């Protein structure tokens, strides 16, 4: 219900989304020479997805797809070099001349990082899905849960000594 009651949150998250995406992309590409990398970029994306879910803008779906694609990319980068007789996970560095950016150096490590991004985003989505976040956001919190009989029973049970 956060989103329904608070247009400020909704609007703020909406406004932040493109910036966060841009930063995530930057972190991913910058990772090779400056702080950042696939894990950080994935978490950045994950964070914005969590925010959007809480704000009710999005539902945490397709966790399996993210993970599958990420896993396949990382896996291919890992075993790919074997086809050329190189050892497992051997890196290929490519240097391109891109019009605006000038000379760009990149490599298969970037692809590997992309796979990591996919997996991390998938993990975050899976977490949100596992917590049933959408339903929770839609329904809001119920007051006075602790007073219900079942919880008290559970609490009483909790008092048992360790076995």
């Amino acid at each position: 219900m956060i989103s329904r009651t608070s247009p400020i949150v909704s609007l703020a998250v909406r406004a932040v989304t493109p910036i966060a995406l841009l930063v995530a992309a930057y972190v991913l590409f910058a990772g090779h020479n400056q702080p950042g990398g696939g894990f950080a970029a994935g978490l950045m994306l994950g964070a914005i997805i969590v925010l959007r879910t809480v704000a009710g803008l999005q539902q945490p779906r397709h966790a399996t797809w993210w993970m599958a694609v990420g896993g396949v990319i990382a896996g291919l980068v890992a075993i790919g070099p074997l086809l050329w007789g190189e050892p497992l996970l051997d890196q290929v560095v490519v240097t391109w001349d891109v019009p605006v950016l000038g000379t760009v150096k990149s490599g298969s490590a970037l692809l590997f990082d992309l796979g990591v991004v996919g997996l991390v985003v998938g993990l975050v989505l899976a977490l949100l899905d596992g917590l049933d976040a959408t339903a929770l956001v839609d329904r809001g919190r119920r007051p006075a849960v602790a007073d219900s009989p079942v919880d008290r029973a559970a609490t009483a049970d909790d008092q048992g000594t360790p076995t």
Partner: protein
Amino acid sequence: MIWSLLALHVVVVVVISVIGARLGRNALWLAAVPMAVTAMWSATRLGSDDVVTAGFEWVPGLDLALEFRVDAMGSLLSVLVSGIGALVCVYAVGYFSAGAASMGRFAATLLAFSTAMVGLVWADSVWTVFIFWELTSITSFLLVGFKHADPVARIAARRALVITAGGGLSLLAGFVLFVDATGTSRLSEITPVTGSTATAAAILILLAAATKSAQFPFHVWLPGAMAAPTPVSAYLHSATMVKAGVILVAVVAPAFQDTEVWKPLGLSFGLATMLWGAVGALRHVDAKLILAWGTVSQLGLLIALLALGTPKATFAAISILVAHAVFKAALFMVVGEVDVRTGTRNINELSGLRRSMPITFVVAVISGASMAGIPPLLGFPTKEAAIEAALGLSGNEFLIVGGLIMFGSVLTVAYTTRLLIGMFAAGDPMTGREVASRRPAMSAPEVILAAGSVLGFIALGWVTGVVRPAAVTVSPDAEVYSLLRWPGLTEAFVTSMVIVSFGVLIGALLARRHVASGPVARGAANADWTIDGIGRLARQVAGRVQHGSLPLYLATTVTVVCVAAVPFVGEIDTDTLYWWDNRAEAVLVLMIVAVAVAATMVTSRLGAALVLGAVGFSIAGLFVARGAPDLVLTQLLVETVVVVGFVVGLGRLATKFPTPTRLWTAGRVVIAGAMAIAVAVALAGSAANPVGEAPVRELAVTAQTEGGGKNVVNVILTDTRALDTFGEIIVLMVVAVGILTLSTKRRRTRPETRTDTPAAGSGPASASARVAPVDEVAR
């Protein structure tokens, strides 16, 4: 060529798996193609001295590689494996009825098995041997359990898998010690070794061979495996898989012959198996089981001969291996044909098939006589070689080993005679059984194999020329021996004739005696009881250990870590300890301690989540102070996601923690304090003894030259130690799959049935372990 052949196998397996369902029985023809090609290629290399190798370095750093080396032995074995495989495919076309189901699956599995077997006989590195060894276990499990709707087949398949795969574990351990003892993983480079490591390796490898080659007391899986369709039995249990153990013993024999255990242990396995198998063959009435027990007996003889280790015995073993593959496959095919055409394999019910199945009869007599060692068939000179090897022994060895081998041979002749008389001789007419018409696809392979037994004797010089180089690879002194068509009235020949006469006499007498039914398979029952028992034990242990109480899990883990830190106490050097590098660290650490203590005191769940977040952010601050921007970035992001995640997830739980008991509170304080001390001790201990200088400079240089990046941390993650990262993301994947599975399961389970699932929670107060009941209320 090696690669192309293996690739051909794999491609055809895939093709059959995809389109096999549409092909029906014709899938078997397709499966026969790669086998026939391999058999022909190997046949051109028979008896030649040149060696073909192929290798593929997988992970050079770990010495992981696929290594193949086709020498005289490899060619001989792959001719048998692939040649008989192709014949079995043809035979299977006749064996199965036109509308038989799952023929694609059958053909694909059969070919996959054949691939594994070819890989095994060509393998040079012990690791390659191990891989293909396990592949044969798995594919044969699938083949034995082909009729998976039948519980008997399922149990037999499981028994076969557990015993042979258990042997596989022993093999892996044995190979590790083997490489340690011999200093090489190449089978072609081994040298004789002695010592305790070599002894242990010898025992483990012999055990593995014994499980695979059905040596007593591991033989129990083989008769059970007769639940498989007969083509499978003809292939796996005559020519190939059961020979894997024998082949293994042969190829590692040069290394272990000098160890003290090798010979006695191998001989005990072999001789016990030879006798017990022959006895089993004499007791059963199911023709297929008679052959199965006969195979057990023959495998025992082979292992005994190889363990004996004399050049003569080795030569005899390799020649019997060839002859046995030819005649035993034919005999299995005969029994399968009798089964298909009359509907029974019980020798009590069968009689007089000599008239109604003449071709089958001729094949059976030729192959049976070859098995009994009667001239003029291939089995005769090979058996002669074995008897000569036995006669060549002296002293007690001659009395015990030689005597038992001869006694075993008498029994072999006896069960062969009994089988042939039982099936084909005229007796009580078969009531109510029609003999169905002949199927050419079944007869053709039988006739070819029977002709093999005859032609092998006629062209004995050629056979010698093929077998001798193979025997020489095991025992170089074997090159002086030959298979003889007519040895003259030697001691061995006379002995052999006495053996045959006695055997025929006993067999004929036993065939007269009516046995109502075969013995109860007590060994198999015991094996199943053990396997079930292991399962029960595992469930009980898991039930105790995996009690489902999160606090107890945590307490256990933390306690173990505390104990692990004890050895570090002595390592601490107080001179290396100092307070801080800069004062900001002190402030941050105080902050961390304060919020961490606060986290234990907060009673509301949301408050606890936020305080934990504060701990995380303070630690990020500590990273800033130490100048580790990558860590800071990641730590901040992780904390953010975790805190927001907590806030989302807490909606499912009661707002306050349940009040713990005094005792449990005290327990938690103790555990937490111990953990704090343990971490401090471990850190101080490792600070006192740094393992060399940190290779920061080196890494910074290689990061740029090899990794092509300036961020050392990231280059380490994605290049230098990418394998570690790969492992970590696999862990992430597993975690995510676990979360998804749990959440999906929870949603599908109805609330009523759910009450019994968290029953394991008799543990102490816990927020997280109690999600389910509270969740129910939230709905």
